[in-house]
């Protein structure tokens, strides 16, 4: 799969052999287990595999999408009951029953996740508890279908009319588990996984990248529910008897424990976590209360002591093994190559962005007052003004973060007033933020690559099966991202966490991400705040290059020397009103500007 031109680093090669070896041994062990162990152990491991499927599903929502919910038992139970009812009451074949279970689970996940369009975090946790309780009451109360609290006996597990032996069941579950793990890996190591993680780490920036995060929460939850429902269906056919008690709150906590112990947001976390959480309570079989207390203690202690779980902690030590296989270790070029930029037109007379009568009021305060402005294509247009003049508010209205109270914004002649930010990105606007907003849970290179998401043309199915097209597109965007990183001088730090960078480097990383989106217009909100003199000079060069490539720039900046040097036009705001506009020398000479901006009649810089 790996192209010969893509060299892995020695460290990576060493560890990856080690880890691949360990995993293969483990796989071998579980393959021969039914021949070597007694029925008790076969059952034990088959159940463990079911839990791995469930934990994998939960990990997608909780770990990768950042949605901690408590409905896992409900999704699992719904899947189990739906498949059991389909198989037993309606005599449908096993495969159809599983499908019913998955569908039912997805349906319930919609009830949890549709509120998630509007809210997140704590509210979502509460909604999910509510759904869990409701589902449980239905399991008990709807006796006609579920058998109520007496329980429900399921027809013997058959595939194509053939009853399965215990070993057969074991292998069937093992195969499904392997498929699920593969599904998780391919999902996470694709554009989709990055989008989910971006949404988890910083939803506003994710929105700015074109990720419709309310919708993505629903998607993430659907994936998670599908796996939970599948786990439920496997469980139902394997165990042969369902009782509502098995799907209560304590089971939800068990699922949570598996993911927290193993490491939420890691690929192998659910496997390790499920193994630990299943084996550990075996020591407390004599006292179920003590078992629960141990669960509780683990949840309290591990969350604080090992926030990444077992796998997350190991991963931190072996950063090298997380190297992306698409990253080329050899330097291709040290300069920005804007050759592949597709800027629609470069005629300088045309306005790329026009603003008319833009107004924003917060209660009684008018932050921006009837602002008219036009940005010519291919120019650097600076927006300056004293603190509180309404610069960032203006930019936020342009980029869809805030809705204007009044007025119009048009981009490329199309009205974009009040568009949501994820609609703007596909049209060619990208931005950086006044306060750095990076995806801190992702590596430096992934922070850049996530910007390339719109250039992909492969489908979700393509991503899941890692089609040739998907791999080609992935490699292209990683190579492009590497180029951006080298230009900003972070080529060596591709696998670091963004939190380890200096604030200047973080600002540059944001710029690299914005450029990776290949925008027509780039909005930079105080990019040089906190940068050193050298970094500012470097930045100034970068902006000149970007401008040369035909990208229009709207710049907010306080470094007057920089603004005067690189701007084609300057608009000056004060108290939300435009007080001057024009070429830098005109603005600098304008007495009104001097008075408002400097407070005294003095030379500008």
């Amino acid at each position, binding site marked *: 799969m790996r192209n010969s031109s893509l060299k892995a680093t020695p460290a990576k090669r060493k560890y990856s052999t080690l880890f691949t070896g360990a995993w293969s041994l483990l796989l071998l062990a579980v393959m021969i287990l039914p021949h070597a162990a007694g029925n008790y152990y076969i059952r034990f491991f088959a159940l463990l595999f079911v839990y791995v499927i469930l934990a994998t599903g939960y990990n997608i929502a909780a770990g990768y999408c*950042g949605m*901690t919910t*408590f409905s896992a038992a409900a999704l699992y139970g719904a899947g189990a009951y739906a498949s059991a009812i389909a198989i037993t009451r309606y005599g449908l074949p096993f495969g159809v029953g599983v499908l019913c279970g998955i569908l039912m689970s997805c349906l319930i996940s919609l*009830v949890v996740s*549709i*509120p998630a369009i*509007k*809210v997140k*975090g*704590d*509210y979502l*946790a*509460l*909604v999910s*508890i*509510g*759904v869990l*309780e*409701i589902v449980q*009451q*239905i399991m*008990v*109360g709807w006796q006609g279908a579920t058998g109520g609290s007496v329980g429900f006996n399921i027809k013997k597990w058959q595939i194509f009319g053939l009853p399965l032996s215990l070993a057969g069941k074991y292998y069937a579950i093992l195969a499904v588990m392997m498929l699920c793990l593969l599904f998780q890996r391919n999902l996470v190591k694709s554009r989709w996984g990055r989008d989910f993680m971006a949404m988890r780490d910083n939803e*506003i920036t994710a929105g700015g990248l074109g990720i419709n995060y309310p919708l993505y929460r629903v998607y993430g939850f659907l994936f998670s529910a599908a796996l939970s429902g599948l786990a439920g269906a496997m469980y139902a056919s394997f165990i042969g008897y369902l009782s509502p008690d098995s799907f209560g709150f*304590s089971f939800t*906590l068990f699922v*949570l424990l598996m993911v*927290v112990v193993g490491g939420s947001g890691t690929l192998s976390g659910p496997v390790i976590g499920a193994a630990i959480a299943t084996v550990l309570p075996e020591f407390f079989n004599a*006292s179920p*209360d*003590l078992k*629960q*207390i141990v*669960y*509780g*203690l*683990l*949840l*309290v202690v591990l*969350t*604080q002591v090992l*926030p990444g779980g077992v796998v997350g902690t190991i991963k931190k030590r072996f950063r090298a093994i997380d190297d992306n296989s698409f990253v080329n270790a050899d330097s291709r070029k040290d300069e920005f190559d804007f050759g592949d930029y597709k800027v629609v037109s470069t005629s300088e007379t045309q306005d790329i962005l026009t603003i008319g009568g833009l107004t924003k009021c*917060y*209660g009684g305060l008018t932050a921006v007052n009837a602002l008219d402005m036009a940005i010519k294509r291919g120019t650097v247009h600076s927006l300056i003004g004293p603190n509180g003049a309404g610069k*960032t508010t203006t930019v*936020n209205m342009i980029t869809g*973060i805030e809705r204007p109270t009044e007025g119009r914004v048009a981009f490329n002649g199309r009205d974009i007033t009040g568009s949501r930010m994820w609609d703007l990105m596909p049209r060619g606007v990208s931005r950086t*933020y*006044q*306060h750095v907003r990076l995806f801190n849970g992702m590596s430096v290179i992934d922070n850049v690559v996530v910007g390339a998401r719109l250039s992909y043309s492969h489908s979700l199915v393509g991503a899941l099966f890692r089609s040739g097209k998907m791999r080609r597109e992935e490699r292209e965007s990683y190579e492009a991202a590497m180029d951006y990183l080298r230009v900003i001088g972070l080529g060596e730090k591709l696998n670091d966490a963004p939190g380890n960078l200096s604030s200047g480097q973080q600002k540059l990383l944001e710029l690299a991400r914005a450029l990776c989106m290949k925008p027509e217009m780039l909005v930079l909100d105080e990019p040089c705040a906190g940068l050193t003199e050298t970094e500012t000079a470097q930045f100034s060069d970068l902006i000149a290059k970007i401008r040369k490539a035909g990208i229009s720039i709207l710049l907010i900046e306080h470094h007057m020397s920089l603004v005067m040097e690189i701007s084609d036009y300057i608009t000056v705001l004060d108290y939300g009103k435009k007080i001057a506009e024009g070429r830098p020398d005109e603005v600098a000479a304008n007495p009104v500007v001097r008075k408002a901006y400097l407070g005294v009649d003095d030379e500008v810089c």
Partner: protein
Amino acid sequence: MQQFIFGLANGSIYALMALAIGMVFSTTSIINFCHASVIMLAAMTSYWSMAYFHLPYAAAILIAVVINVAMNMAIYKTCVEKLGALSTNIGWIVTLFGASIIIDNAARMYFGTEPQAYPYLFNGRIVHILGANIMLHEIMMIVISLVVGLAYQLLIQKTRFGRAVRAVSYRHDTARLMGIKSDVTVLFCFGLAGVVAAISGALIAPVTFASYNMMSSIGLKGFAAALIGGLGNTQGAFIGGISLGLIEALIGSYIPASYKDAISFFVMIIVIIFLPGGILGAKFFTKGDSGKEKI
């Protein structure tokens, strides 16, 4: 009438729970998922003080209050404080649930599984109002909750501590720069929530009986009430709690008993979808969104 008073009484318990959840929320913006367990702890400790040490009612409640305050502060110290920024690190959801399991199961181990009859206020005397038989205890539930709510509101609005709470709830670091000990204020709010939990425990236990799982269905309704009214808001807690209690009492007679508990969760989900800030968080009641994160 009987149903109405019953709903009102239950509603005031929900309101008390919502109030205590709001106290913690206002300074930390976290939802104390452990609250129901602490209420249970109060009911159990006061019951055992009365039954085994033959302490008078008032002394038993006092002990419960002291234990609850200590417990809540311990929860803050062990489960919340070390997590750092609570808005970005949502580990508190997990740790607080963990704490709640520990408390519930420890109670089960030490106090047994048998539900115990807990004394009513006024020995369960019944009065006749407008032809309905109403237990004085139910009326006291309503009265005491209102008194607690008013007292808290006064505390927040009129005292130095209240000002500190309001400052901390806006921004921890800035409050600290103003000379307010943010951590101590938060710790105090946890303690105060413990006091309210003890009171609600003593009020609810006669109805549910004292047992380790007495809060299993009520516990979540406190959260529902808090959300319905609007988190961290005294009036909201009461509006949410009482409306939830009334809805349950009035609708409860028309649907099968096994689905009765589902009503409040259903209402909660509907409110979250349509009014994410709760009833008092609706646009009609708020003036702008000054607390929003700056971008």
